[in-house]
């Protein structure tokens, strides 16, 4: 038996390490953690204006940026009991879907699958057009604000065209991904016996009561993991749980099905964007005035990489307490189990497929 610590390049910001007990080339026990310097979103937003909490959340990790901003905005609205106009909720759903398209296509580009980069950049461009149109910038969309979206009108035609134009390419990516995943599955024998959480859609019903946040010194058992870990992990209903595209699509036979699920979600998200924009009135009201009082609220959204939960306590126009549980916090608890019984050499490919980001994990 040998204990090995391997830095796993995931293509995402921050560091991810797998600490593995290996016997005859097979992993018998593993823990996955991050040594990334914590951004500490929860402390850097204290005493700041609630709007800053949104702007800051979008800069935790580029993968789920818009979704993180939306979760914080909705937690603020729930704390203040603000009712957002229906059109804003619809437009936000399309924004979240565009974030999913870009994030998944980027993840497929970084994967160990041999896919058509031109096709993936075509859908990334379409997603960026939607993010730009509804969020006012292609990255970290700043239009997301408490009360709705900071938009004069909703550029529905631009959004609809961008989504529809990319659909055919997205279908091709879906087919290519399915066959590339099948080929790679022949090489990598793996099983996943894990609990899952998540449904297709935008908002999730996860509440702070469902989640237990475990500090690293209570979760990790292996010495190297304990020394390296700068991250907390989160259990759902007391269990290590898989969130994200595989959980939402119920495709959990093999870890590489994460890519199959992502390719399917790209198509579905583009369809959702097109359908939403078709039904939206460009002149509909998308912003309610917000009066900052005191209160506490939470919100959860299905971000590209999984369910993202935010709770926030406000004291007038200042943040008094804040908490964020990211998809990587939840997935880190289950990642070690996914590695179990796998041949050691396949650990990097499988961890990359799980979609962990060191930055998301330490946020």
């Amino acid at each position: 038996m040998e204990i090995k610590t391997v830095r796993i390049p995931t293509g995402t910001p921050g560091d991810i390490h797998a600490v593995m007990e290996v016997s005859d080339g097979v992993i018998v026990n593993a823990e996955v953690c991050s040594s990334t310097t914590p951004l500490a979103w929860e402390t850097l937003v204290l005493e700041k204006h609630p709007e800053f909490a949104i702007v800051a959340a979008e800069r935790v990790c580029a993968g789920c940026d818009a979704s993180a901003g939306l979760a914080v905005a909705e937690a603020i609205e729930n704390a203040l009991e603000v009712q957002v106009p229906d059109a804003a909720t619809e437009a936000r759903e399309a924004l979240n879907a565009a974030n999913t398209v870009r994030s998944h296509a980027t993840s497929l580009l970084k994967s160990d699958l041999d896919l058509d980069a031109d096709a993936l950049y075509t859908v990334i461009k379409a997603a960026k057009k939607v993010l730009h149109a509804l969020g006012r910038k292609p990255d970290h969309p700043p239009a997301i604000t408490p009360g709705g979206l900071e938009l004069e009108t909703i550029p529905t035609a631009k959004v609809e065209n961008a989504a529809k134009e990319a659909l055919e390419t997205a279908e091709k990516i879906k087919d290519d991904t399915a066959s590339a995943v099948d080929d790679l599955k022949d090489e990598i024998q793996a099983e996943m016996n894990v609990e899952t959480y998540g449904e297709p859609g935008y908002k999730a019903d996860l509440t702070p009561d469902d989640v237990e946040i475990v500090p690293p010194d209570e979760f990790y058992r292996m010495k190297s993991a304990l020394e390296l870990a700068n991250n907390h992990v989160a259990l759902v209903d007391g269990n290590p749980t898989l969130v994200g595209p595989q959980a939402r699509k119920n495709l959990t036979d093999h870890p590489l099905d994460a890519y199959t699920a992502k390719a399917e979600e790209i198509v579905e998200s583009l369809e959702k964007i097109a359908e939403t924009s078709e039904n939206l009135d460009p002149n509909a009201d998308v912003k309610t005035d917000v009066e900052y009082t005191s209160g506490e609220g939470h919100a959860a959204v299905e971000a590209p990489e999984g369910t993202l939960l935010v709770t926030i306590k406000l004291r007038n126009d200042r943040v008094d307490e804040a908490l964020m549980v990211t998809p990587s916090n939840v997935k880190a608890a289950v990642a070690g189990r996914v590695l179990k019984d796998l041949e050691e050499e396949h650990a990097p490919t499988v961890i990359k497929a799980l979609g962990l980001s060191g930055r998301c994990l330490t946020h």
Partner: protein
Amino acid sequence: MKIAVLSLMACGACARNLEEACHETGHEIVWSSLDGDTGKPDADVLFIDGAVDFTDHETLEKLQETTSAVGTVVSLGSCAATGGFERHVIGMRDPDRYHFTVFPAAKFTDTDYAITGCPPTTDAIAAFLQALDERDEEALRPYKVLSGDYHALKPDLPAPVTGPELPVEDVLLTSNKDLCLGCDLDVIEKDLFCVGCGTCSTACPAMAIVMDEKPVIRQERCIRCGTCFASCPRSFKTTRG
């Protein structure tokens, strides 16, 4: 050109836009820490993405090793160039509470150019790549000026401010970079250079500037990225006009 990417404390959006710009312009990324590359890159240009914790010796060593191997070093995005959003980091979170000394990567290593933005757009990066590839010195000048170590600059003016033909270096010297690059707007306005064109407001990635004839910064949204200053046509009025 052969491109290398070193990603430090960053959200990853700058590197993602660089990858897209390289795909579009045909430049090849031959080395990337995001993809697990280590050691000395064999590349023409190194882009550094992100800030650094002053106490993170391992990262500082990595920074020295990679920058020493490549001829041209570029700070990519505001976190690397000025500290940007990462300068808000105050640490104070378990289990590693003592990491609040975050500075831009450019503070610890010599850089040749800087592209500010949070993040710089794919088009902005592509424009820089073109200028660099063509060695277009005039087009590269703003990127060169922005690559200075802001935090070492003093607010003392070398000469009285006299008019809009002020060289860009002098404008940079008029503000206190220790505090906030974004606050340069106050200086521009105070010195009556601002013509109220609204370029800064359009460029701001956080929608933190509203125009009331002159720009007014909504500090509650400002991430100190400096994009406003870098985009202002008056702050970049060069001596050549």
